[in-house]
């Protein structure tokens, strides 16, 4: 894991002191609500339905046991004892009073954490593949590049007030586990035919009202040039992105409107920086810098020696079915001999997807310490991942995780759904997500049925801002507001860009919205149609694509009650 330097540490403390000054001026009436708003957002503080919401950055999803324990402490002391892990690998608290905000930032700074740029119209926290550095299909470990990007984008003076938010995701693997096509900039690390490292660069992906998949603007950008190239993209966006309408302000709109001209403008700006600007070449990343940052991500010595001397097989003879299921769903291949990555499921009955209590955070921290070199990852699917588990420890880990409620063997299955906090918490939401997620959880509580349904991505967003990534769900559920009531639009066949799901694509709407109480019936109807039509080896999304929307739509329409009534009387 990246270890903070003295510079990093004093920087985060300076940010906390700056925020305290801003907060004090605000509380003293010297800084109005509107003006304080943009400042607090860039430190992760939203104002929500009940209290401010604090979004804490977990850079590219890497978290230490020590940090997680501090988050548990904050949950206990300042929140109502729990937190919510997000699709962007961050952690959110929902109940911290604003007047305690600066104290919380100080506590975070103690463990090298902060909320810098987790919100606001700036470059957001960089996200990555939760399996970075451990995935067998990885060409290049993205973490050093993520860290270089994190540093470069942190408090960049020119790009703090862009037309709209700006999200960058990086992967270095063949399988896209970071949904890079859905980001403002998506970066895929590659090696060319002579082994040199570079990036495939996508620009202009995004969800929201206008779902768009990013356009490839470079097939192979040498890694040394990545900061300059991104500077060029951001400068073109800062100057020419729309600011007259916030729904048209994301870079995807500029890329769509300008097409090839946008790409040419970026190329011209890139060359101008290098050829004409004072200091323009200073951000060409030298090998020494990459090596220095990469040294933070070397294999733990213990892991290296264990990998060289051990057997890789996992004994399953005479083991309980529950354990074998857990091995199948929650335990993942590792690039190192004798190791596995293990998901701690945050998707279980009685808790909102992605939520963890303070006690659960402490247990997860202890599990990481005991079984995974004190390191965890936050996954895009809102689970926790232990990256360095020995195969010989799996049985023991399973027993311990099971007692702590972390071993639900449902990773990749229907109940491993993505959901935003929704209208129970969020001031932006049109509808609630948590009760809908809970109703679906309850409907599909039979593990045998879940296994029969197999791999499926179910994503729920409480509004069009798409924090729950409904566009990319095989089944997407979007909360909408109709005359003050909560309704849910259902989409079919979306993809985050993973191999299993096919190229990134938004799902198709299957007709008018459904009432909240109909949603579990609709999901069940869609699943039943899949089970009726599937051919050998087909996953839900394969059948949905082959059979097409009409059959699924008809099945969903057949379970309408409230909507049928509403339409009949309209």
């Amino acid at each position: 894991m990246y270890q903070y330097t003295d510079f990093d540490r004093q920087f985060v403390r300076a940010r906390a002191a700056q925020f305290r000054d801003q907060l004090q001026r605000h509380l003293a009436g010297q800084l109005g609500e509107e003006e304080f708003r943009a400042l607090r957002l860039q430190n992760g503080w939203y104002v929500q339905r009940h209290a401010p919401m604090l979004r804490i950055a977990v850079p590219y999803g890497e978290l230490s046991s020590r940090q997680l324990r501090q988050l548990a402490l904050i949950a206990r002391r300042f929140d109502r004892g729990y937190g919510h892990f997000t699709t962007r690998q961050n952690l959110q608290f929902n109940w911290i009073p604003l007047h305690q905000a600066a104290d919380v930032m100080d506590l975070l700074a103690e463990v090298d954490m902060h909320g810098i740029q987790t919100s606001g119209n700036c470059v957001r926290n960089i996200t990555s593949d939760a399996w970075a550095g451990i995935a067998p299909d990885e060409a290049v470990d993205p973490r050093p590049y993520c860290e270089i990007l994190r540093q470069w984008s942190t408090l960049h003076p020119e790009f703090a007030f862009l037309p709209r938010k700006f999200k960058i995701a990086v992967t270095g693997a063949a399988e896209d586990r970071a949904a890079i096509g859905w980001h403002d900039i998506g970066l895929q690390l590659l090696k060319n035919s002579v082994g040199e490292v570079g990036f495939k660069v996508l620009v202009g992906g995004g969800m929201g009202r206008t779902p768009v998949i990013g356009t490839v603007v470079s097939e192979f950008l040498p890694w040394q040039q990545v900061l300059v190239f991104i500077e060029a993209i951001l400068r073109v966006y800062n100057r020419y992105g729309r600011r007259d309408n916030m729904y048209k302000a994301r870079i995807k709109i500029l890329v769509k409107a300008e097409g090839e001209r946008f790409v040419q403008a970026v190329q011209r700006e890139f060359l101008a920086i290098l050829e004409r600007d004072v200091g323009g070449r200073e951000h060409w990343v030298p090998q020494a810098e990459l090596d220095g940052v990469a040294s933070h991500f070397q294999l733990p010595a213990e892991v290296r020696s264990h990998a060289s001397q051990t057997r890789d097989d996992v004994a399953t003879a005479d083991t309980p079915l529950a354990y074998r299921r857990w091995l199948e769903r929650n335990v993942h291949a590792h690039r190192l001999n004798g190791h596995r990555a293990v998901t701690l499921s945050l998707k279980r009955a009685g808790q909102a997807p992605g939520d963890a209590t303070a006690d659960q955070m402490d247990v997860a921290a202890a599990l990481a310490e005991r079984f995974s070199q004190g390191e965890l990852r936050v996954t895009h699917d809102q689970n926790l991942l232990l990256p360095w588990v020995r195969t010989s420890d799996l049985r023991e880990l399973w027993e311990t995780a099971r007692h702590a409620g972390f071993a639900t063997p449902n990773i990749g299955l229907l109940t491993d759904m993505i959901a935003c906090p929704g209208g129970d918490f969020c001031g932006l939401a049109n509808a609630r997500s948590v009760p809908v997620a809970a109703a679906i959880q309850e409907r599909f509580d039979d593990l045998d049925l879940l296994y029969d349904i197999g791999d499926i991505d179910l994503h729920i967003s409480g509004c069009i801002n798409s924090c729950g990534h409904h566009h990319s769900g095989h089944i997407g559920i979007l909360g909408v507001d109709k005359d003050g009531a909560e309704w849910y639009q259902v989409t079919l066949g979306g993809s985050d860009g993973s191999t299993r799901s096919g190229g990134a694509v938004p799902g198709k709407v299957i007709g008018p919205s459904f009432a909240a109480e109909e949603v579990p019936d609709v999901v069940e109807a869609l699943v039943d149609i899949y089970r009726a039509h599937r051919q050998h080896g087909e996953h839900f999304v394969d059948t949905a694509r082959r059979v097409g929307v009409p059959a699924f739509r008809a099945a969903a329409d057949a379970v309408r009650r409230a909507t049928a009534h509403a339409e009949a009387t309209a």
Partner: protein
Amino acid sequence: MSTARIMRFVDPVRDPWQEPADAPAAHTLLSLDQWSVVRSEWPASVPVGVLVANTVDVETLTGDLPRWSLVALQFPKWTDGRAYSQARLLRARLGYAGEIRATGEVLVDMLPLLQRSGFNAALLRPDQNREAAQRALRFFVGHYQGDVVQSRPLFARIEA
């Protein structure tokens, strides 16, 4: 670059820059349109400044820049960040060495960004507290990425 290191707070009472008069006068602040009318006859010895809207491509101003003592960039709303890019281009790409002044909705907490993007003067919105603005410039002793004041990023400074 030394001028870029110091941020001057413009005192609106003592500020010499004024609206245009009938004849060229020292410290006249013109709009870009006004400048284009008088540019052929404006005497080189009479300091002139130009107010540049944040939609202007500053690279189109290259030929005129040496004649200007002041470029006033605008923040119609403080969250509209276009002028940061303009200032950065004026300094780092076009080599402009005169005053770059932030005008419009200029707030205390913009000061660190203004300074690092190449502004060396700020006309604060009247309700803003200058002491707080000066304090805002002192929280950070260094930054990760290079900027107009310090063009080298942290990694280049450490290696040097």
